């Protein structure tokens, strides 16, 4: 099972409610997977700083002095804002990737959840309502976000096995399904020098997209290529700094519903997840086609591109 949700706002007036809307959607999906939950939020851009969201098992100790150590490593000001087991490190603009690399040296016990300019990822073991409450997700504002509640099938129930997965600068992925060729693909990607931390199948899917994009593919091209190279079942919802995308495998046995109004585009594993969105009664509601990449950005009209199954 697993439940996934996504919300991409067109109407700026809804931005203060993004966290609350996404939290409600995700809690509705709890019975699709109660192991662990996570939410990725794209907040307001601060042109003076980039962000690294981190997590630690023992945050009291691990976050103590971390900003200073990172500042020394990066040669510029770094601030740390703690939120339960997570913290957002604000690093000099454009240094998010450098910061992620530096973190492994400076504080190997602290895990990077996400890096980018606007993306923050929060995830932990537990029910969606508890995970959302401990980070106070409902108070967060933003332009778009995605969420996931997990029923583990392929690997252990841990923070690092929870979704969303960070796939690149300001990019993340949630997955409903199971990949069957993740072991061979993990070995291949590791030979290519891609860092993969766990035995989780989705992390391999995320790493695959990262690898494709490092080799020049756009996110859309990487998603299309995933239809060839990933074996198994998947509904992916992806977030980028400016957009939101959806792709289903050609078999499409995992459920998916989308809704669009003048105010938003929303994704849910089931229609139930969407019923509290404003104006849902008159929204255009449809099931995304198999093997088709859908993408919305704030700049462009939706561009579904059909890929032969």
């Amino acid at each position: 099972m697993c439940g996934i949700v996504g919300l991409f706002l067109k109407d700026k007036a809804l931005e203060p409610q993004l966290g609350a809307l996404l939290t409600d959607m995700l809690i509705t999906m709890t019975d699709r997977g109660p192991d662990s939950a996570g939410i990725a939020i794209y907040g307001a851009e601060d042109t003076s700083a980039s962000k690294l969201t981190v997590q630690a098992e023992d945050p009291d100790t691990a976050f103590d002095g971390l900003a200073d150590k990172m500042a020394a490593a990066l040669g510029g000001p770094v601030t740390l804002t703690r939120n339960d087991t997570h913290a957002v490190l604000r690093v000099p603009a454009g240094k998010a990737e450098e910061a992620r690399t530096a973190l492994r040296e400076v504080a190997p016990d602290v895990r990077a959840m996400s890096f980018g300019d606007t993306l923050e990822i929060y995830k932990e073991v537990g029910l969606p309502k508890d995970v959302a409450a401990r980070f106070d997700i409902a108070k967060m504002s933003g332009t778009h976000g995605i969420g996931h509640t997990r029923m583990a099938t392929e690997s252990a129930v841990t923070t690092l096995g929870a979704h969303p997965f960070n796939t690149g600068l300001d990019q993340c992925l949630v997955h409903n399904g199971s990949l069957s060729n993740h072991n061979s693909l993990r070995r291949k990607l590791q030979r290519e020098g891609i860092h993969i931390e766990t035995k989780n199948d989705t992390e391999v899917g995320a790493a695959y997209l990262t690898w494709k994009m490092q080799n020049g593919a756009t996110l859309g091209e990487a998603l299309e290529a995933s239809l060839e190279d990933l074996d198994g079942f998947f509904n992916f919802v992806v977030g980028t700094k400016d957009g939101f995308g959806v792709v289903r495998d050609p078999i499409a046995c995992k459920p998916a519903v989308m809704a669009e109004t003048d105010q938003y585009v929303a994704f849910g594993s089931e229609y139930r997840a969407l019923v509290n969105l404003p104006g849902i009664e008159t929204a255009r509601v449809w099931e995304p086609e198999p093997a088709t990449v859908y993408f919305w950005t704030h700049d462009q009209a939706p561009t579904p591109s059909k890929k032969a199954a």
Partner: protein
Amino acid sequence: MMQTYDLQANGLRELNAALHAQANDTNQTSWEIVNPRGSHAVAVGLDAPIEVSVKGSTGYYTAGMNKQATVHVHGSAGPGVAENMMSGTVVVEGDASQYAGATGHGGLLVIKGNASSRCGISMKGINIVVHGNVGHMSAFMAQSGNLVVCGDAGDALGDSIYEARLFVRGSVKSLGADCIEKEMRPEHIEILRDLLDRAGCDAKPEEFKRYGSARQLYNFKIDNAY
């Protein structure tokens, strides 16, 4: 007299228990369900000649295992609507998700929008009329009954079909293993005319093509040969 039931306020178990309690000679023949909000298993397992009208969209397995009842969804239905229906009628005003009418033994399922993948999978005598399109692998391993598609059919229509009549007005993206186009004889036009009429569809039977089993793939005794 119309019974109105608020699903959000009063819950699913009570609803289905109340509907199951209706006997053949009930005088509570007309039910309206409000606030379905995508709930699963709405009006499943009914076995009385009652009319149930659902005001909104539903989740998994709406009207599954239906006998005798008429269930009308004024919205879209999630996966497995009218799964294993035995008799009666289920009408979906909007779209239906995967495996609509799966394994159905009898009755009529009408989908006024589109049905997605695996519509009529393993159908065993049910009649399904889809006003729009159906997705891939529809009528997979179909055994008996009629699937009528007024729009287009997706990939692998009728894959590994035993017996069943598949009528498609629009295009078929591809036929599955052992499924072939067949001659449209006068008796097929009559069957189709009756089904279209009962499904409230004004398409003309002559506009459809018929598909069915080439009978090269299975070796059972053909009791249902069409």
